[in-house]
């Protein structure tokens, strides 16, 4: 492994979630999965709801992300601007499951079809599923 490192910052409108030197990073972009290593070309891309895998000194850390923008700079600095981001260990699994169930209930049982914003519901379900998956993944390890 090279001794070059990436400097990663994950930030949301509310706070900066993560800032550290890392070896590599894997994200889900809107055109597919992407792994960034040091000396990547400058790139700006949009992120989907998904996971960010951060690898440093052989350790893997996962972050859940509700979409956002990824910026890779020429000087090995990487910035993720996310609407919202959580470390896998910070995720409240019960709450995520509950929210998931609630969203699905509304989707399946709503009698007032006109008033349901299906796009938003689909998005909510995707977000919560993402959290649940990530936590379960972390627990297995």
């Amino acid at each position, binding site marked *: 492994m090279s001794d070059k490192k990436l400097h990663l*910052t994950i*930030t*949301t*409108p*509310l*706070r*900066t979630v993560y800032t550290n030197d890392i070896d590599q990073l894997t994200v889900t*972009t*809107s*055109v597919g999965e992407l792994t960034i290593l040091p000396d990547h*070309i*400058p*790139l*700006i*891309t*949009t992120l989907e709801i998904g996971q960010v895998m951060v690898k440093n000194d052989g350790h893997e850390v996962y972050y859940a992300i509700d*979409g*956002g*923008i990824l*910026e890779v700079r*020429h000087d090995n600095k990487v*910035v993720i*601007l996310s*609407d*919202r981001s959580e470390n896998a260990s910070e995720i409240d699994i019960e709450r995520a499951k509950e929210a998931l169930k609630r969203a699905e209930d509304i989707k399946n049982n709503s009698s007032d079809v006109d008033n349901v914003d299906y796009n938003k519901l689909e998005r909510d379900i995707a977000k919560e599923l993402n959290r649940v998956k990530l936590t379960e993944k972390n627990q297995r390890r």
Partner: protein
Amino acid sequence: MQTKTIKQKMKSVQNIGKITKAMEMISVSKMKKSVQKRLASDVFAERSFELLENLHVHKKLSHPYLESRDGNKVLMVIIASNKGLCGGYNMNVSKQVTRFIDTNSEVTIDAIVVGKQSEKIAKRNNINIVASFTEFSDYYTASEVRSFLHSITQQYDNDNYREVVIAYTKFVSSLAFEAQITPFIPLNVDTAEKLAHIENTTNAKRKFALYSFEPNEQEVLNKAVPAVLMTVIYQLLLESLASEHSSRVMAMRNASDNAVEMLDELKLNYNRARQAAITQEISEIVGGSAAVS
């Protein structure tokens, strides 16, 4: 006055003083926390503005929220407090709203209000309220801000508003704050940067000419615009919150000082009354013994 009634009054003034002192200290810590939260969003604001400026100003890409529109309706977001006892804080916002109405008499105004006091402001100025947010948690969570922003943009999309303006209180320092009305949508990069207190140092700005974009530049801009709107509205909410608390600190400090002053005065009166009672008693005893002998 009777010593007993003075004593009672002293007691109640003392209690009020204790309460206002406690409120002052609570507000000091709440103000500090709001300022901290406000500063924590700076990194995101800086980056997203950089992106917006490069795509919109230099590459001339566009987005519905960046284009000005015609019309005679204005959507006004009024940010004030839920609770009172904070000096002139709400009154100052109200004055700005009234002035805005006076100078823009040709437009119809709808309002989205934050806080119970701004409901009152809107009613006092005869503005139609389209949405009211009074249940926000202490320092605003991400989902609260998002749904707040969503209701603003939805209202803007569905009706022919000319613009969205925000009446809020700018936090200058813990002693100075200033109610003002600022344009929000259509987003103007320069004014929005000023709102977010981002220094416009042109030579330090990076150009994104060397970057490759995926899937394309327009897609990135479509994500960057809501991100910028979100930070701006979040920062304005927190600045107003910090101003509210610092205004309350001042009001409560005044109240505590007044309580101390009043207590001193009452103590003087009390001692005077007590002395008068003793003197009277002595003269009665002296008078009584003189009558007996």
